[in-house]
């Protein structure tokens, strides 16, 4: 049924690389698309089958199917993930999510038991809003709302403003340019919807429900997710493992792909036994 445009493989520009026995599904973060994984792929594609996609409205997806209401909260993105898994008949796979996609993966794992064997969360944050002293989200809600608004109001240059904040100073400027180009290639109207879903969702209450093992990869210096966030998640999530890397910024899969790939491979193999 629904053979036409809603086919998720077409809608979400799904690409499959490699032929390994284990399948890894990669979900990009806010303002990005599947090309952001290009640094990591060479380290993983020989031994794994890799499934890449773009959320509806981003990258090479069918942007006509972007619906403001569906994608106003994380649920819409969870649907994309579940739809793609259904179309490819995926089960028991490793889900690798960057930033907001870590939470999208966790929501999908809870909703569909058996879909994922385990989760890899790169620079995750269940909430960007402080609730001190217990939770150091990083921002007061007012500041966060304002940051989203300022970035938006500085359109059309919003990509130029946000990319250095997300990438973090001290990394190769070429990476900041790459991230900026990715942001700039995103329609500002759709970016606004995804930004609000990303930065204003609070998933802290679902962490204890995590049904599968999870590897949390935390950056030591990250404007968007301080080390306290990783520690908090590790404490709340059963079967979680926390690795804090001395990396800079919110995109360690771009800045330090070899180390991130090593940790993913090690984690995935440890789960096979």
């Amino acid at each position, binding site marked *: 049924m*629904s053979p*036409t445009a809603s086919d998720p*493989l077409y809608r979400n520009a799904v690409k499959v690389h490699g032929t390994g026995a284990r399948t890894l599904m990669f979900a990009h973060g806010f303002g990005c698309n599947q090309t952001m994984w290009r640094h990591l792929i060479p380290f993983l594609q020989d031994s794994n089958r890799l499934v890449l996609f773009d959320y509806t409205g981003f990258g090479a997806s069918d942007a006509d199917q972007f619906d403001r209401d569906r994608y106003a909260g994380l649920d819409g993105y969870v649907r994309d993930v579940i739809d793609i898994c259904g179309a490819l008949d995926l089960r028991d796979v490793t889900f690798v999510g960057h930033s907001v996609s870590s939470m999208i993966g966790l929501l999908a794992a809870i909703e569909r038991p058996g879909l994922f064997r385990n989760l890899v969360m790169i620079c995750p944050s269940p909430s960007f809003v402080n609730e001190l002293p217990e939770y150091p989200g990083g921002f007061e809600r007012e*500041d966060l709302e304002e940051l989203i608004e*300022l*970035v938006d109001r*500085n359109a059309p240059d919003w990509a*130029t403003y946000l990319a250095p*904040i997300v990438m973090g100073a001290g990394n190769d400027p070429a990476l900041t340019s790459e991230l900026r180009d990715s942001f700039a290639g995103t329609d500002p*109207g759709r970016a606004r919807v995804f930004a609000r879903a990303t930065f204003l969702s609070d998933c802290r209450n679902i962490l204890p429900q995590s049904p599968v093992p999870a590897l949390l990869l935390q950056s030591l210096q990250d404007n968007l997710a301080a080390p306290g966030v990783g520690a908090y998640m590790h404490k709340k999530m059963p079967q979680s493992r926390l690795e804090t890397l001395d990396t800079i910024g919110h995109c360690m899969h771009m800045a330090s792909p070899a180390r991130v790939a090593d940790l993913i491979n090690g984690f995935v193999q440890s789960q096979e036994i």
Partner: protein
Amino acid sequence: MFASHYVGTDLGFDAAQIIQTHIDDMFTRASGLLIAEYLRPALAQTRRCDETVLTILTPERHRIPVVVNARMHPRDEDCVCWTILRAEKRHKLHDALLRSHELLEKRANRLRKLASTDELTGLFNRREFLKRAGESLTFSAQNGTSVALVIADVDHFKRVNDTFGHDAGDDVLRELAHRLRHACRAGELLARYGGEEFSFCLEGLSLAAVRGFAQRMHQVASEVRAPDKPISISMGIGLHFDGTGKTLTQTLKEADDALYAAKQAGRNRTFILDGEKLITGT
């Protein structure tokens, strides 16, 4: 820090105290992030920064939207000249622009949907089908994958209209469209091609699978009533296998010729045409 009178009168800072203040302390935290991560690096690189929207935080904790221009002093490397102007009206204009943008986007989406949808059946229309089938053929030619284009025609549909009226005829088309749609699988695109004709674009199927598809659709059509008896369909299929250089028009012409042959051979059957070769299907 030196500041003009305006900073006191319009931005809410005490002119005497401003001398003790660092520029970063005049802004909100979110603005501070933009200044630290974007504005200062940009100043270091290009010595100027234009029309950045930020928010002033006054000593009384009022937030004032402003537009900031910054220039490195031409002679003093430690000195930055800031021009800060209130921007409430600019904000209102921006908001109005956003609202009209969203409205236009909604309308464009609605029009796009209308332009691509068949009103009676809710399926894609012929225009959208041709567009998407063309994309499939291009992909097929580049990647050596197979595409089959199918035209299906309801047998003796004129009899339904003449005997039971056009409303009954419309009911039959709606019911058939609904059933065909539900019988389609991933990679099988369905449209109303016109009148009592439907079309499919099948991606990645072998010849055997195309035959299986035809069988499935004949079965589905036979479940629709005319209303006095079950209907049947005839189908013609044009193949675009292994990246052959055939155009959309050529492949559709083959499907159309195959359909004509199926009708001539007694209807309720499928013929497949691959170049000159006519293959009897189901």
